[in-house]
């Protein structure tokens, strides 16, 4: 019986393994590897896990809906980036920050850790990597480092970012209150904040640079982790990521004034465009997103049109039941992508009125957006679609069950890994919490463990999974000209993502002894 389970587990793992091997060892692009993973998932699901045509049909529609939600953000983020970049503003921002602080570690901390976390707080869904990566390239960092740093730096803030969408999903599937779940979640994510800061710096400059920037990491990390904890436990978890990174930004700018970080003279430079004009698109973004998310009347007005699809109960030939319900709806005018789109349009008009564009700029903006958006989107859709096949055929559940069976009493150490797996598969902490939240809760209760601690580990692992999710890496790579060459970035983030998750696992098991 156990032998059969092992075989099933290996087969359930085969699509993920296919993607990893093809991307890391054969340097396949995300879109090609995703399509290969789709075929492997389809074959395994049909031959072993009881998939039938109707199940495959409904799972693919759910995949398409989920993909559209993600692509809405990605295309709008790419458009905003090209609207800004076409004016030369990205270069100006890079020079401006260099003028503010010539210290590379401070630049990494401010952009790759704090600003990326802030963008996660207000937008999410890959926006932090898509926006920060080209800024870091503008500062002179290599494209691989430029994508890897924000990917690592922002991931701690995913759960309480995007207005707490992932935390809300965790509460919804577990039926538990925020007052019960928030303390442990904020604690583990707070620890992850320090670790993300350390490894974001490490990926560029090694331990020498970590040592140099330790004071900055401790001050900024404490500011962000402390603020997040205070907001989460006081019931304002929707502002957890946003508020924490705002306080972090203030702390970061203050730290940059310290003598030890002011020893490198910034290079003198002449800028045709003022820094504030260059930053204006992002200030517009902050204003529009904040208004669209935080002002109830605007949020309600924009949220009036929502596209949803109803699905019947789906039962696989092996008896695995997927409950009836609506798929992931698309809030057409209030979606994060819509807010980014408004920001792009307003920013374009502002830059155009100031005469920052050359003739034919609009055509160039649209062409560049399509050129980088298509390969990225192909990878995302194929991966989300095969994840949906796996979800509807019990394959993801079998993966999680296998991990918990093997590790038995060490389960608390493994729970963040299950969250990580879900986020890797679907590119989303929210989806990971939806898929694995109940499994983790039930396992915790059976083992007599604190459900709050195990679910905190689940969502922390899910948040950290953002840094290794191919869907997000693809987004970042597309903005720095690395489309089709995502392998080296994934290799870098995978190493640190697994290491941080391992540390969180050890902290979770230690905490399980004292709760």
């Amino acid at each position: 019986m156990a032998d059969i389970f092992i075989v099933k587990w290996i087969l359930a793992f085969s699509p993920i393994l296919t993607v990893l091997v093809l991307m890391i060892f054969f340097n396949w692009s995300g879109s090609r590897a995703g399509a290969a993973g789709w075929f492997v998932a389809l074959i395994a699901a049909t031959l072993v896990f009881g998939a039938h045509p109707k199940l495959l049909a409904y799972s693919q529609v759910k995949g398409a809906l989920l993909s559209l939600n993600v692509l809405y953000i990605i295309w709008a983020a790419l458009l905003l980036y090209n609207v800004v970049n076409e004016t030369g503003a990205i270069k100006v921002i890079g020079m401006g920050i260099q003028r503010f602080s010539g210290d590379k570690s401070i630049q990494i901390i401010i952009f790759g850790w704090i600003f990326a976390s802030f963008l996660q707080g207000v937008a999410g869904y890959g926006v932090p990597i898509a926006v920060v990566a080209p800024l870091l390239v503008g500062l002179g960092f290599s494209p691989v480092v430029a994508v890897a740093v924000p990917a690592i730096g922002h991931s701690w803030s995913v759960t309480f970012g995007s207005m707490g969408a992932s935390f809300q999903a965790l509460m919804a599937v577990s039926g538990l209150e925020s007052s019960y779940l928030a303390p442990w979640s904020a604690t583990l994510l707070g620890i992850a904040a320090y670790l993300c800061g350390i490894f974001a710096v490490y990926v560029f400059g090694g331990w020498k640079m970590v040592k140099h920037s330790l004071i900055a990491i401790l001050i900024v990390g404490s500011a962000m982790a402390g603020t997040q904890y205070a907001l989460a436990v006081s019931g304002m978890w929707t502002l957890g990521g946003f508020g924490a990174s705002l306080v972090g930004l203030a702390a970061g700018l203050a730290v940059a004034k310290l003598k030890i970080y002011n020893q490198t003279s910034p290079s003198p430079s002449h800028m045709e465009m003022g820094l504030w004009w260059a930053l204006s698109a992002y200030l517009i973004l902050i204003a529009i997103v904040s208004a669209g998310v935080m002002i109830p009347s605007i949020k309600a007005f924009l949220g009036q049109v929502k596209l949803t699809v109803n699905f019947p109960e789906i039962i696989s030939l092996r008896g695995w039941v997927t409950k009836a319900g609506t798929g992931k709806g698309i809030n057409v005018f209030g979606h994060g992508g819509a807010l980014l789109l408004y920001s792009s349009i307003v920013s374009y008009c502002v830059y155009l009125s100031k005469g920052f564009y050359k003739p034919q700029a609009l055509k160039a903006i649209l062409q560049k957006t399509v050129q980088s958006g298509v390969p990225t989107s192909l990878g995302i859709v194929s991966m989300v679609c095969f994840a949906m096949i796996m979800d509807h055929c019990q394959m993801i559940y079998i993966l999680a069950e296998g991990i918990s069976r093997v590790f038995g009493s060490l389960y608390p150490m493994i729970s963040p890994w299950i969250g990580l797996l879900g986020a890797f598969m679907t590119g989303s902490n929210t989806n990971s919490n939806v898929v694995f939240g109940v499994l983790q809760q039930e396992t915790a209760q059976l083992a007599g463990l604190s459900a709050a601690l195990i679910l905190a580990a689940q969502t922390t692992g899910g948040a950290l999974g953002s840094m290794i999710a191919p869907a997000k890496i693809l987004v970042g790579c597309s903005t720095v000209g690395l489309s089709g060459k995502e392998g080296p970035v994934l290799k870098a983030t995978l190493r640190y993502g697994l290491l941080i998750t391992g540390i969180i696992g050890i902290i979770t098991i230690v905490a399980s002894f004292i709760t």
Partner: protein
Amino acid sequence: MENFLKKHGTRLKTAALILMLFIPFLLYAAASFGSLFQVKLMLVMMGANMLYVMIKG
């Protein structure tokens, strides 16, 4: 053939993306009407599209 694929690479990839997002909704319609033949046909189309992406994506 190779020249054609090279020349129209971006357009073909865009078409593949549109199909990847559009075929599932045809699948939904076919599955809702209970037409097994149409569901299978759409799945074959989806597979062919994925094959193109895997080779040329």
